[in-house]
């Protein structure tokens, strides 16, 4: 008696054997009680596994999940709007500065001929912007500005962390 391997029996069960092998296995099954018993057991396991039942989730799972998704989508949208606003302001300021510099270059009194004239005008324009800033950032002023800037930075960090904490808390609650 030839004992069929487990692999062959599994393939027979799943109908994965070619015609010739399928026929050969059938013959061996017909001639061997032992093989038939093994196939019967395997078939029984297969049938029982096919009856495995799904675990069911509560009815509110979908509602809760969709609320969470909506909240996250809104947060994402708000973030995009914030980034867009900040970058718009940044771009507007940059455009204003560039515009001012160009205007200053074009309207400044001539300092020479050709390229020398352009360089001279550019230097003058930059100086007209940087000189007042340089004067402002000297002596006592720098200490005051440093203190105000640090205080502002600390306040911003505090508010950022506080907002993050509140967002996390509200997301946790919605779960």
């Amino acid at each position, binding site marked *: 008696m030839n004992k069929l391997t*487990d*692999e062959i029996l*599994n393939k027979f069960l799943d109908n994965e054997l070619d015609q010739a092998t399928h026929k050969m296995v059938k013959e061996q099954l017909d001639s061997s009680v032992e093989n038939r*018993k*093994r196939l*019967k*057991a*395997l*078939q*029984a*396991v*297969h*049938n*029982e*596994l*096919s*009856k*495995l*039942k*799904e*675990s*069911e*989730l509560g009815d509110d*799972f*979908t509602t*809760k*999940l*969709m609320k*969470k*998704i*909506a909240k*996250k*989508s809104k947060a994402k949208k708000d973030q995009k709007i914030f980034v867009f606003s900040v970058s718009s302001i940044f771009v507007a300021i940059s455009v204003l500065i560039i515009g001012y510099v160009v205007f200053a270059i074009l309207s400044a009194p001539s300092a020479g001929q050709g390229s020398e004239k352009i360089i001279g005008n550019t230097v003058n324009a930059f100086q007209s912007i940087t000189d007042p800033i340089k004067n402002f950032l000297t002596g006592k002023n720098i200490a005051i500005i440093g203190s105000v800037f640090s205080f502002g930075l600390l306040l911003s960090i505090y508010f950022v962390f506080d907002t993050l904490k509140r967002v996390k808390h509200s997301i946790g609650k919605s*779960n």
Partner: protein
Amino acid sequence: MKNLTDLEIIESVKRGNQNDYSIIVDRYKNKAFSLVKRMLKNEMDAEEVLQDCFIKAFNSLDSFRNESKFSTWFYRIVYNTTLTKLSSKKRKIESEMSSVDDHFDLESKYDYNMTEKNDMSEFINNMVDELPVNYATVITMFYLNDMTCEEISKALDTSLSNVKVMLYRSRNALKDIVLKNNYTEEFL
């Protein structure tokens, strides 16, 4: 609306109808929950992980390119997210799909007294829970989630032969217990 295919629903969600995603959730939640629960062996963790899976899938819908079925793509997310949860809980690293060489002794976990009192479906259900995570995953995907071996191999990112080896070994282990205890007649 509920008769729409997965692809049609996804296209609708991509067009901005966010609420249509709830149809996908309702369609897959119980099958996916069964899979995650089988892997984590903890109902509360399973629900939490499944929520993450649906959110991840929603956020990645744009990257779904119809190259495979949505279910295969989604179960891949489910499987990987659950594996991450498993490793974060420092469970056995048996969950790695490459470990088809794992050997398991199902018979040592078989409680003779318990099965005398319970029906065979429950016996099989309990035995699947005793299988190593990757084997239980394959069995659940094949029998409960109606996936083919090819789809399972894609979802688990492993070879088709690995999937078949795990499927056959699991069945054989159960078959051996059935044979040893002459349960065949009762089963049929």
